[in-house]
């Protein structure tokens, strides 16, 4: 649906919000989706709120804000983690990959994104970025091979629409293709 007609997001200048005005601001450096960013954060800002509210990277979702659902999963230094429980300041110097950073710059989707579409591994789409980041992390870890292991290792991502079996199929598909390479 390339031309779904949506009202454009209103302009929002990253790094220029209220954050720099407060005395509690702490300078940190994060490499987000390959781009090095000098940021000022308050001590209580979580990585999730930083991504969404300050950087307008709304692809990372807030489903519970307490580490109970996995919707906010991103890759931090290559490892999947719940961004809602990470204070941004404690991730100073880290590399963060969000759903926005998975596709190639030319728009070619990551194989996991392709597989999710092909296997209809989502419905409402809200847990999907977290599922995909989690699945990419899972592949890198290399601990899951069988469907049973995938199910267990993907249990940190709740899907209320119930797309679980399709999610496992999508991951198996990518695994098989990676293995064939």
């Amino acid at each position, binding site marked *: 649906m390339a031309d779904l007609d949506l009202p454009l997001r209103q302009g929002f200048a990253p790094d220029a919000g209220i954050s720099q005005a407060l005395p509690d601001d702490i300078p940190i450096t994060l490499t987000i989706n390959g781009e090095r960013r000098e940021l000022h954060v308050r001590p209580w800002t979580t990585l999730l709120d930083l991504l969404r509210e300050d950087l307008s990277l709304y692809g990372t979702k807030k489903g519970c804000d307490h580490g109970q659902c*996995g919707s906010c999963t991103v890759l931090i230094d290559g490892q999947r983690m719940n961004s809602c*429980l990470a204070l941004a300041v404690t991730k100073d110097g880290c590399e963060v990959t969000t759903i926005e950073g998975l596709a190639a710059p030319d728009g070619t989707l990551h194989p996991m994104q392709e597989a999710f579409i092909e296997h209809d591994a989502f419905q409402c789409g809200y847990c999907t970025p977290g599922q995909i980041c989690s699945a990419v*992390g899972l592949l890198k870890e290399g601990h899951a091979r069988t469907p049973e292991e995938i199910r267990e290792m993907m*249990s940190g991502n709740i899907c209320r629409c119930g797309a679980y079996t399709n999610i496992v199929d999508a991951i198996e598909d990518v695994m098989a293709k990676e293995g064939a390479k």
Partner: protein
Amino acid sequence: MNRFSIARPGSVAEAVREVTTHPAAKFIAGGTNLVDLMKYDVERPTHVVDLSRLPGLNTIEETGEGGLRLGALVSNTAAAYDERVKERYPLLSSALLAGATPQLRNAATMGGNLLQRTRCYYFYDAATPCNKRQPGTGCPAKDGVNRIHAILGTSEHCIATHPSDMCVALAALEAVVKVAGPQGERSIPMADFHRLPGNMPEKDTNLHGDEIILAIELPEPRFGKNHTYLKLRDRLSYAFALVSVAAALEMDGEKVVEARIALGGVAHKPWRVPEAEEMLRGKAAGREAFSAVADRILQGAQGYGGNSFKIELAHRAIIRALSQAAAGTPQSQTDKRIQ
């Protein structure tokens, strides 16, 4: 979430200084429990000390006495998949993998896991009374919703449980917690690390407020294949234990030489009864002996209505876990059939 300042010390001494000079300070490592609780206004530190940059606490090393020393900042994932841990302390690896999710285990640290706070619904809900959160306000769990609450070692002030899986295995393995404070370093055996609620339910552990956890030391391994971590819960993954059992046996043929049994989900700390373990010494492994042990471990257990089923469940779980350990068929954390 309340307002706080943050410090990022570069050494253990500096970290200790930060908490001694700020009375309402809290250490943060993985943050998986502290940030959660701060968002609920349950924890309200005014100063947070970020330990993630402390050198030397992120390694797994030999102790020189045949054991392993797991740095406090080692992630639960790193510990669970470490070849030495898997080979020598598979019970610990299994318990770690029974807990939480890959995402949480990647962030959570060994030190932080020791300090996890209870999942009691009332503790988490700042709109309700709770002696642990706000001493003196009462414990509505006793006559309220207490499905996940304790059956052993409770007090009239608190019936909360300790939620960790890792700690149950550490208790069975008789690990030792290495800590540092203004007075220097000390060692706390697992059995003494967590405490019962008594009349001070606000205090979970015997760690002093100005002490920092450096490492967990595991003694020389001795149980081989005869171990298991059996966790029973309301869904097959990503749920806290209703009852869990860590069991490790040293066997001589069919006979038990030495037994360690710790329970999770039933008390304010991992529950061990050394007298019950003694009962197995020299006995033939079997349902009868295991049942007697379960009786002894659960002596004095008390239900509060919603959690009363845990007494029978724990009894059965102890027997099953000991059977798994004796047979050398530890519970898989992936295959959800219970062996």
